[in-house]
């Protein structure tokens, strides 16, 4: 557990000091939300119809930002190798890193989502489904993104590679998350899709750290 806490604490300190980097996904999310009405007719009914999907797509794309550096800095300065030597299982240390990453990039997204939903004329009835869905879904995105980052940390740099790896895996989350919001917006019960989002989260939480650890070991060989 020690490595998990140590890694988490260090990452939080770094994030606080480099607040600019941490804020990028958040700003991106807000910008995308602002662009949507500009690209469409700003009719409230039209915006409300596309809002569930656009909010989730925005969250997905925002989650991709900031992944490049997730493991790269530690890989460069040797911290990753140190983590291999520590008694704590690498998967747990990974969990600590991803949890911190989510706190810094994912949680603010969840908090700002109601504001963006307002910009897209989403009915207020759908706000709880949006917030809960994103609260359950952004950790999953963080884990999937971390997996992509771990697989590519020792690869040649390519801007397209990480999105190509992560986005197909995120499709089910997008489908269920957006559906929950759409159901709630039309007055129906969003519980079904929300439970599916939660299940995806649990599933990813149990398996992703192991895959991420395996990917990091490959990078360090």
């Amino acid at each position, binding site marked *: 557990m020690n490595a998990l806490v140590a890694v988490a604490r260090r990452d939080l300190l770094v994030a606080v000091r480099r607040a600019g980097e941490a804020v990028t996904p958040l700003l991106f999310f807000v910008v995308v939300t602002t662009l949507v009405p500009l690209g469409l007719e700003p009719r409230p009914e039209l915006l409300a119809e596309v809002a569930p999907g656009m909010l989730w797509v925005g969250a997905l794309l925002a989650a991709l930002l900031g992944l490049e550096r997730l493991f790269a800095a530690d890989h460069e300065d040797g911290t990753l190798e140190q983590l291999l030597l520590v008694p704590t299982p690498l998967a747990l240390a990974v969990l600590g890193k991803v949890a911190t990453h989510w706190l810094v990039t994912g949680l603010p997204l969840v908090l700002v989502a109601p504001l963006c939903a307002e910009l897209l004329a989403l009915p207020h009835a759908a706000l709880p489904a949006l917030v809960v869905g994103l609260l359950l879904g952004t950790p999953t995105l963080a884990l999937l993104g971390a997996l992509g980052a771990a697989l590519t940390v020792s*690869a040649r740099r*390519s801007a397209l*590679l990480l999105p*190509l790896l992560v986005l*197909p895996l995120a499709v089910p989350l997008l489908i269920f998350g957006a559906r929950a919001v759409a159901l709630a917006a039309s007055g129906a019960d969003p519980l079904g899709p929300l439970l599916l989002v939660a299940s995806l989260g649990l599933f990813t939480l149990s398996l992703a750290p192991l*895959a991420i650890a395996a990917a990091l070991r490959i990078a360090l*060989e």
Partner: protein
Amino acid sequence: MSDGWSFTRWSAGILPAWAHRLASPPHFYALAGRLTPWFAWPAAVLMAVGLFAGLFVAPTDHQQGDAFRIIYVHVPSAWLSMSSYAIVAGAAAVGLIWRIKLAHWVAHAAAPVGASFTFLALATGSIWGKPMWGTWWVWDARLTAELVLLFLFLGYLALADAFDDPRKGDRASGVLALVGVVNLPIIKYSVDWWSTLHQPATITALGKRAITIEMLWPLLLMWLGATLFLVAVTLTRARAITLERERAQAWVGEAL
């Protein structure tokens, strides 16, 4: 550590000698070379007969007319795209668990063919959709799932190629393939579910209705022929990769 029980060592221990030989690059190279014609020629014959029968012998469908004949290239492509991914994931698993680099090379060999079949499924599905539904693209469950599968293949190929050390590329893409195969049922389920929500009542899924035996047998021939084709091409590509990766070894000189 080496005295503890290890699944990898135990499972390797119970395998017969010929299985062990299979993992050795020079043996694989020779064996694959001998086997390829036995897959390639039957593949060509089966597909030629199946295609001819599908285009000219099978009775015309009353609903879709002769447009339904696209099924004879569309459905085998879709099935083969799945089989190819299974081969990639299976070979990757073998490579990662038992640390057999040849298995990774087989996966790399199967991936481009799989991507081709996936592309073909998408293209023929799209062409079929135009006369049936009036548009070039329809977000029906199967086409959408094939699209995601195409991205999985492309991601695998891109990752395998993205490392200066090819062995890292082997293992990283192997992990990705396993992650993909675990996610594939989830993706398919979610896309199926999503598509039932948005499907207009008049549209039925491509090819999903009662199919008579006269229409079915050319389809089975095409599927079988395409499968043999997949194996033949994979074996050939795997041999090429084997030569590249093993070029510094002595056995390569004899085999060339």
